[in-house]
């Protein structure tokens, strides 16, 4: 779960990491009032979970309270990466001499926590890591020992800071690690960490991601900062996706969900995880146009599969449906077959003429195939590969039967 900038700063500041003076506002009037309180140049920053918002008009500046009000009014009407801008973080504008980078994350190759720092921070940190890898300093640390002061001290030597400031940077790095380990974060980066003209360090922006799978034990800690558990997607979910998520959530048994909407004409019931990825790719490579991505597995019951099938079959623009799964070891093929047929019958569809194709195998496949035969639905067993089935599904849609 990613945190908003203002949430991240609230937490970091509770660890006594210096952040600019700021306030979250939801109206242009509030922006003006706070700008007046600050009494100098200010920055207005859209509170959205989009990366690179600076390049999309998500960060703007104002010299006076009047200008702040005007800019805030414009920003609060805008959309960034599909997200409506509902609130702004209004901050004193610091006079910046240099931008640095410090962060904690996990290294999936070394399988340890990783502390990173660079004397070149800011929006182009990815560019820096490509062009000047020597400017990025990384250190794997023991997850039992944590970040020790000597290691933080070693790392900040690379920041080329003037006298006394390495001590301040070391303290910031240690506090950042303290937060990272206590909150089950998987990413905590201060970018940029700025050196101001007054010779002080401050966290100008921060990106924090809390491990979704640790939220069960972080609720209380996050609650102290008024942060509640929420779904975190790269874009807002569509009504179709919301409905699918409800179907999956309503019954804990198995998975029949994780739906993502596409705008094609071929409805899909595919599974499970890796199987869905494989099938979806094959359909695209054969020139098919999927109406959705989804996952069906974990031995989901008939009722759940039926509801998902109905949702997909009723989606506007869907001209046919393909059920393609990997060889199931723990899910039942007959459940999937029953779920599909039940959905079609309940929707009053003509099972013999509607374009539908079924490829699954594994546990209870004979029972599944028997029902499919009874209703005249074309099916394939494991002798037809998932790729072939995907190709046949694309052909089926083109022919309309």
């Amino acid at each position: 779960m990613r945190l908003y900038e203002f949430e991240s700063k609230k937490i970091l500041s509770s660890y006594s990491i210096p952040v600019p003076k700021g306030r979250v506002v939801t109206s242009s009037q509030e922006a003006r009032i706070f700008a007046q309180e600050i009494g100098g140049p200010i920055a207005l920053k859209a509170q959205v979970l989009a990366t690179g918002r600076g390049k999309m008009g998500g960060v703007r500046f104002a010299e006076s309270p009047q200008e702040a009000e005007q800019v805030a009014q414009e920003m609060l009407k805008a959309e960034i990466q599909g997200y409506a801008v509902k609130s702004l973080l209004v901050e004193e504008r610091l006079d910046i001499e240099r931008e640095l980078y410090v962060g904690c994350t996990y290294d999936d190759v070394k399988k340890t926590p990783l502390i990173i720092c660079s004397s070149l921070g800011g929006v182009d940190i990815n560019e820096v890591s490509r062009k000047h890898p020597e400017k990025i300093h990384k250190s794997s640390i023991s997850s039992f020992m944590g970040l020790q002061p000597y290691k933080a001290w070693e790392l900040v030597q690379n920041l080329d800071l003037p006298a006394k400031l390495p001590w301040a940077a070391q303290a910031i790095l240690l506090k950042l690690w303290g937060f990272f380990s206590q909150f089950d974060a998987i990413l905590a980066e201060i970018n940029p960490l700025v050196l101001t003209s007054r010779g002080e360090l401050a966290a100008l922006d921060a990106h924090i991601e809390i491990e979704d799978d640790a939220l069960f034990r972080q609720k209380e800690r996050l609650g102290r900062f008024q942060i509640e558990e929420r779904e975190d997607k790269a874009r807002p979910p569509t009504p179709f996706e919301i409905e699918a998520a409800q179907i999956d959530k309503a019954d804990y048994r198995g998975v029949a969900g994780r739906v993502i909407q596409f705008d094609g004409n071929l409805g899909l019931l595919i599974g499970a995880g890796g199987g869905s990825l494989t099938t979806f790719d094959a359909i695209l490579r054969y020139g098919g146009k999927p109406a959705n991505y989804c996952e069906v597995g974990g031995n989901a019951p008939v009722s759940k599969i039926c509801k998902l099938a109905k949702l997909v079959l009723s989606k506007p623009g869907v001209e046919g449906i393909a059920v393609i799964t990997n060889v199931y070891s723990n899910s039942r093929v007959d459940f999937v077959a029953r779920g599909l047929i039940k959905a079609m019958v309940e929707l009053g569809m003509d099972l013999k003429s509607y374009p539908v194709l079924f490829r699954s195998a594994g546990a209870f496949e004979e029972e599944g195939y028997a029902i499919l035969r009874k209703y005249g639905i074309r099916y394939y067993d494991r002798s037809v590969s998932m790729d072939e089935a995907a190709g046949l599904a694309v052909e089926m849609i083109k022919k309309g039967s």
Partner: protein
Amino acid sequence: MAILLSDSTRVIVQGITGREAVTFTKAMLDYGTRVVAGVTPGKEGHRVYGVPVYNCVETAMRNHEANTSVVSVPPGFAKDATFEAMDAGIELVNVFTERIPRGDVAQMIEFARQKGVRIVGPNSLGMISPGRVKLGPAGGPLSECNRAFTRGSVAVLSRSGGMLTETCSLLSQNGIGQSIAINIGGDPIVGSAFFDLLPLLEDDPETKAIVLFCEPGTFQEEETARFVKETSYSKRIVAFIAGSFVDTMPGMRFGHAAVIVHGESGATRTKAKVMREAGIVVVDFHSEIVAAVKKILNQS
């Protein structure tokens, strides 16, 4: 026997009285795996398909000599259960539990390194040495396992549990058997990544070729390619990378927790490129694995 499993594999199941564990314990016993004990705190004295249940791994180990454990406990207890197994002398821990916090997984792996223990997983359905031993739910009940997995000389390593069965079934349908089939787990950090297992497979006389089922996200495939290139790896590898469409949807999560792409990081096009440069045969369609493996087997 190929790697990790052998005639002397003796297994305990931690969390044996759980719904899923009961089912796969039965499947393991049917397959011929020696499941010698189970552990569920508070359930000592019970039996699951004849397997005695203990309160602690330590007591289970005192009464039965075991060297392998399958961990199937809720995510909040998985780190503790894995520590317990390692402390009691278990040498191979297969962690089936999914959704374990990443910080816990990092500690489990660090402790395993100190102890010289191998972890497979978390979020792993297990592994099968066809016709001999099976660990965890991989492949399902005996009859399903026998249809999908056949004995032979190809090692199959997969980030997806379902696609492990599909891939082995596809190979078996085409007369190609497997020396070992392992679901390494779908998490961003796993105890045994492809690059951790390749050295073992290189020394395994039963394995003639290797198949990798890859997914978007993580640097695992990139690191594997680097390892293969730098060590001039001697065995031929065929890889299929599922989910290339995910490259076009940065920030979106699909399937496993690890399947997420940020720019070039974790993108399948990068993986395919570096793997090909390392001499790994990367096929575009999953079913093309068969022809690619046949070619390698015919050459050797």
